[in-house]
């Protein structure tokens, strides 16, 4: 029997039928209650059933008040696509992203892309998933062909695929995901298949390599199914019987994982991948209980396979941190005991400095995880918590359903795999900021230490030697700008989400400005910490469309300094007044009084609680702060 590619990192559902039935018969169920069911280990039948239930309650329109941007996904391909929808939609629900799906008439992907009167154009996708199967791509290639004819075929297919990407981009300006084909062709030659130019298997392998390179040039994100075939085996992903019967390239049992792969790319595009890995210590990072077994009694390092497995897991965690994932510790221990191995055990790969937030005490883990989120100024929905103890996992899942808790055994062998397969930290671009992040959190702690040693706030702020560097939006900062616009929830006055194309439009608009602000201080570079977008609402008034800021830099006078910048840019556009909107969400209560605190005249709230405050630039006096401002 074949191994099934399944959602093994999610917990097995208990009482599945009863829970699904409870959702089905609920009068007015919440989107969150449905999301809880979507976060279980669902096979394709359960996925289909949950999808049908969710659609019967919520229809096809996104629920109101969702913090994420709804997605209209066109699934475009050469084979049968119908069985792919539920897995994708339910994986979106798992990440709180509403995905409405569309598929082309059988085989008509190209016609629908180029025909402005097609149903695809009417659908207006925000994301397109292009899935061209291996049989379709290698059609016409045969073993009898001359090398140059094969070469010509390869170029033709590449042009066709690239043409689809460009057509989609031109028509919709949408995010494009290209699914690489499954290697469905049996070998004709064997180990050195590439020596037969007309081998379809060799052709597809070459095409896949070329598509990787083209996708980089064209800015297309890949869904690399070949990677999953290497992991699970082709039989887990492709069933020739079902191909012949129904032209399903991806086998039914693999569709929940397939959906998750699509949804994680969509979530990553919105800047909603997880950001922080929270580690339990005893029997997760090392073997044994440090408080009982002592430093010498820990199973860690050379000498046993188990000890090496813990080292391998630590190494994976450290590699994740070097690419931008924040590490934290949440352990039931006396702090001194918990820290000791980090400082003294020779086989520890992780050092105290790798951990941005270290909490070891006897409180319950849910409270401690809340404290970690608060300390790091990130949302709970950005945390992944790994623990060998099923009790702790269940407690955190129950108390904090937005925290991801991978289902693992108590064997550390499986930990790296669980984290990797779950795709929590899926990234589409690795920015310099990502790589520098761990050291930024380290510098934050040094700042805190300085604050404790300086007695009054003004002298502390002065001693930070802060510089605010502003730049207009530009290509270099584009990824980071979009990332911040889409993931900042707390210090965000209007929570408007914009795509790359939206940002490019702002850059081109002469009556708007978009600014990215970087904050430096004596401890280092905090990176881009704020985004400001202003646009002339009429001849006199500049509307502050977007004002968002990283909570890392709260309380450092960045707000009044930013207002000085807004005022200056507004006056360049001829504005006499600033209009500051506040649109309340579940998460941005902290900036409710933002404009009033800065001296704006408050306005009436509308029915939804949104307010518009006004500032007269004629009488505005720029605030004097401890931050030096310059363009750069």
């Amino acid at each position: 029997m074949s191994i099934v590619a399944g959602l093994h990192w999610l917990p097995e559902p208990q009482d599945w039928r009863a829970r699904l039935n409870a959702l089905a018969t609920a009068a007015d169920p919440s989107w969150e209650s449905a999301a809880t069911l979507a976060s279980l280990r669902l096979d394709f039948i359960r996925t289909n059933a949950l999808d049908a239930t969710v659609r019967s309650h919520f229809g096809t329109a996104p629920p109101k008040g969702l913090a994420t941007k709804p997605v209209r996904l066109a699934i475009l391909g050469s084979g049968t696509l119908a069985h792919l929808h539920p897995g994708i939609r339910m994986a979106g629900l798992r990440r709180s992203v509403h995905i409405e799906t569309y598929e082309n008439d059988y085989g008509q992907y190209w016609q629908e892309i180029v025909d402005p009167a097609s149903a695809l154009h009417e659908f207006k996708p925000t994301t397109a998933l292009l899935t061209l199967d291996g049989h379709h791509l290698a059609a016409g290639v045969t073993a009898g062909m001359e090398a140059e004819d094969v070469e010509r075929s390869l170029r033709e297919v590449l042009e066709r695929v690239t043409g689809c990407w460009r057509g989609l981009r031109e028509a919709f300006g949408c995010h494009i995901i290209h699914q690489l084909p499954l290697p469905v062709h049996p070998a004709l030659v064997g180990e050195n298949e590439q020596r037969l130019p007309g081998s379809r298997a060799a052709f597809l392998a070459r095409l896949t390599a070329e598509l990787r390179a083209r996708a980089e040039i064209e800015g297309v994100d890949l869904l690399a199914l070949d990677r999953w075939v290497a992991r699970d085996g082709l039989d887990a992903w492709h069933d020739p019987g079902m191909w012949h019967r129904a032209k399903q390239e991806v086998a039914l049992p693999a569709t929940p994982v397939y959906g998750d792969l699509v949804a994680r790319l969509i979530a990553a595009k919105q800047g909603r991948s997880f950001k922080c890995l929270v580690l339990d210590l005893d029997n997760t990072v090392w073997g044994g209980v440090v408080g009982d077994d002592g430093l010498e009694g820990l199973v860690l390092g050379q000498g046993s396979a188990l000890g090496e497995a813990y080292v391998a897991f630590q190494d994976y965690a450290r590699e994740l941190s070097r690419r931008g994932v924040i590490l934290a510790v949440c352990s039931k221990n006396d702090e001194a005991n918990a820290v000791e191995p980090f400082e003294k055990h020779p086989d520890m790969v992780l050092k105290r400095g790798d951990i941005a937030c270290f909490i070891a005490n006897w409180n319950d883990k849910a409270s401690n995880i809340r404290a970690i989120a608060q300390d790091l100024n990130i949302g709970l929905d950005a945390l992944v918590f790994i623990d060998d103890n099923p009790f702790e996992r269940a407690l955190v899942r129950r108390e904090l359903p937005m925290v991801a808790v991978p289902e693992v055994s108590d064997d550390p062998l499986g930990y790296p795999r669980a984290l990797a397969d779950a795709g929590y930290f899926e990234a589409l671009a690795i920015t310099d900021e990502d790589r520098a992040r761990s050291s930024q959190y380290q510098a934050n702690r040094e700042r805190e230490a300085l604050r404790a040693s300086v007695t009054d706030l003004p002298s502390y702020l002065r001693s930070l030697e802060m510089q605010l560097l502003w730049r207009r939006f530009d290509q270099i900062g584009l990824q980071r700008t979009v990332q911040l616009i889409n993931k900042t929830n707390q210090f965000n006055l209007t929570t408007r989400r914009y795509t790359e194309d939206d940002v490019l439009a702002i850059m081109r608009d002469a009556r708007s400005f978009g600014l990215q602000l970087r904050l430096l201080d004596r401890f280092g570079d905090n990176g881009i910490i704020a985004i400001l977008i202003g646009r002339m609402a009429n001849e006199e008034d500049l509307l502050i469309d977007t004002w968002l800021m990283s909570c890392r830099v709260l309380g450092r006078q960045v707000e009044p300094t930013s207002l000085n910048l807004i005022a200056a840019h507004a006056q360049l556009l001829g504005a006499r007044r600033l209009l500051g909107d506040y649109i309340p969400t579940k998460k941005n209560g902290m900036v409710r009084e933002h404009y009033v605190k800065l001296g704006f005249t408050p306005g009436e709230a509308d029915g939804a609680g949104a307010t518009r405050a006004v500032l007269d630039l004629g009488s505005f006096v720029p605030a004097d702060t401890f931050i030096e401002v310059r363009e750069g």
Partner: protein
Amino acid sequence: MSEAAFYPVLTEIFRDVFMRDVALRPDLTARDVPGWDSFKQIEIIVALEERYGIKFHTKELDALNNVGDLARVLAQKTKT
């Protein structure tokens, strides 16, 4: 197992696939059950393959006409 012994499992799988109870009897065909199209047929087949760790022969699937055929093939394939 006898053919009859497969009906409880088939009933369970049909309930999961169609999200309602379907009264199974040997002469029940896809035409008798609203929504039983070729996609649902594949879902039922794949669910059974996973459940019993078996693989249906292409010929066996082509020859299926009703629930009775399905139970008969299952009984043959799981015979040890």
